[in-house]
């Protein structure tokens, strides 16, 4: 993986993952919303050994810009070997319940914008017949719970979309990796009370890098979340619906 395109590059998890690619001497192309932050991340990755780091400031809510963005990355790096999609938002469940506009925005941020990016990217990789697409989904998408089922629905939809895409691109030897982090201490979760189940963006970043190297299909990070979600998914719906989760 010499040429890596990263969406949501200033997110804590993306930064942690990108350090590993930089260390490998990759050429990185970063997409984010904040120039200052992108500059700081790019400087860091250069010192970490990246051959070259380019970045573009772009709000990924503007779907119409997606095609151009990918074209630019492809031209600047003269190809794309791997892509990491790490942007997303965690909006208030209550607000989404009160107001459809907030729900729609959550679905746009966490599902539709990624589908929009992956449409040209999938065609690109399918034609190229090699590469790796890694997307950060969430354990929240494994089962709907009253506390965050809007976000969960976006992530659940995303996970299903990725399953289908993996199935389609298997014939072209393109790896599609679904990353399902558990609770991670990042700006997204700054208002949550942290406990023993929480992990750091560094742990998750290392896990994503390793999974991409090994061309895995799906990975829970840290891996104990696989067990937790196995249990949560196995609870019969008649009981589950009464739980306060």
């Amino acid at each position, binding site marked *: 993986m010499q040429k890596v395109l990263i969406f949501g590059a200033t997110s*804590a998890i993306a*930064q942690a993952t990108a350090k590993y690619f930089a*260390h490998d001497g990759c050429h990185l192309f970063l997409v984010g919303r904040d120039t*200052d*932050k992108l500059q*700081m*991340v790019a*400087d*860091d990755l250069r*010192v*970490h*050994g990246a051959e070259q780091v380019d970045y573009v400031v772009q709000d990924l809510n503007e779907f119409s810009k997606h095609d151009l963005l990918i074209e630019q990355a492809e031209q600047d790096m003269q190809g794309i070997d791997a892509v990491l999609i790490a942007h997303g938002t965690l909006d208030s469940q209550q607000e989404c319940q009160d107001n459809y506009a907030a729900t729609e925005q959550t679905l746009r941020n966490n599902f539709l914008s990624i589908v929009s990016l992956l449409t040209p990217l999938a065609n690109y990789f399918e034609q190229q017949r090699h590469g790796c697409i890694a997307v950060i989904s969430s354990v929240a998408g494994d089962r709907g719970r009253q506390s965050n089922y809007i976000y969960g629905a976006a992530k659940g939809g995303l996970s299903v979309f990725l399953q289908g895409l993996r199935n389609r691109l298997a014939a072209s030897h393109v790896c599609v990796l679904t990353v399902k982090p558990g609770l991670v*201490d990042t*700006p997204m979760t*700054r208002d949550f*009370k*942290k406990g023993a189940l929480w992990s750091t963006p560094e742990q998750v970043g290392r896990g994503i890098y390793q999974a991409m190297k090994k061309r895995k299909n799906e990975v829970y990070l840290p891996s104990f979340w696989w067990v937790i979600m196995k249990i949560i998914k196995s609870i019969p719906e008649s009981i589950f619906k009464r739980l306060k989760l």
Partner: protein
Amino acid sequence: MTQQFESWGRFPRVSQTVKTIRWRHEILPLDNKSNILPYGLGRSYGDVCLNDNGLLLHTRQLNRFISFDEDTGLLRCEAGVSFAEILQHFVPRGWFLPTTPGTKYVTVGGAIANDVHGKNHHRAGTFGQHITQFELVTSDGQRHICSPQNKTEYYNATIGGLGLTGLITWAEFHLRPIHHRAIHQQMVKFANLEDFFQLSAESDEKYEYTMAWVDCLAQGDNVGRGIFFRGNHVAKDQVKELIPNWQPPLVQKLPEVLRTMPINLPSFALNSLTVKAFNFLLYHKQRIPIIEEFVDYEPFFYPLDSILEWKRLYGTNGFLQYQFVVPYEDHQVIRKILQTIAKSGLSSFLAVLKTFGELESPGLLSFPRKGVTLALDFPIKGEKTFLLLEQLDDMVQEAGGAVYPCKDARLSPRHFKAYYPQWEEFAQYTDSRFSSSFWRRVTRNVT
């Protein structure tokens, strides 16, 4: 969010609100009333990194490199970058830290704030001496670029300033070139204190790194016996002997879970018998007077880092570290202190002895100064541990020495002010919104 953030000695326990800073251009997350203290990796032992009932500013996410000059070794990085991260990245490229304490799990900001020293103090001085410039953010929102030429008074106050002058967001210093990751080491057995001083005097010239482990339970003629470690980075002409077969120690490759002390030992696990046995074995394990070998830099500099969370050896009661320096001329103080400890029956698991060189740190409140320094640790066994250490405080004061704030959790204001008479000058440069449990303790008025 109220959370338990500990110091390494796990004493005292305090309650504080933790805020995280993630970008160096962010403004400080101050509220209307609480004071604040930057927190790195929590490797200081006592309460210099704690802020009871206040805000603790978690800085570990400021962990980005900013620039590196391949020709001169000049590195600029954010203050939350750890020494471990610097080593991991730069040792394979032939660079090493200008000086390093006995753990690599410290942040650059913490290393400046405590003006840490290492085995090469007699050559390199403290870490703070190597800082060419840094940015200090004060509670009024101002950003100061401090260097030996610019805002010198803040530069001097911040080095060794225990995080009280503001938040260091980034710093710049030179790494030093090395030819190989290994160290050419000699371990020399010595029978008593006199031998230590002689070894130290003759080694400081030829060896960049020197320190000794001392059996602090030995009594009588054996007082001060131990093993002297001295070493240099591998020289260019030695590299051929090592390459290509050199392997970093296996323990580094084990997964973290296998290297982590899994549980808190019960507090009686470290008692005078087990400690005596440990120190006896450590001394007698070496059968010949001198062992000469190549060792990896990891076990040479960071022997304890191979066991993650080793503080759990001391159980949940925690432990007290005690490090002091006394002027070199007075060998007898060290002897008296070692005798006092041996007699007290309170045991120090590991005692480390080292001579400091003449290089003076710019840090106003810095601990290292010319002389001999001894570092000890004591499991907390109630009141008698505190009484012993107070007795030692007096002996150190009488000898014109000082105790290291970074390791302290119990020093009285009287002793602190005697060791650091410049504290009032320093206090002028502290930020009015920054404070720590340590600072409030040692500056409180006692009637």
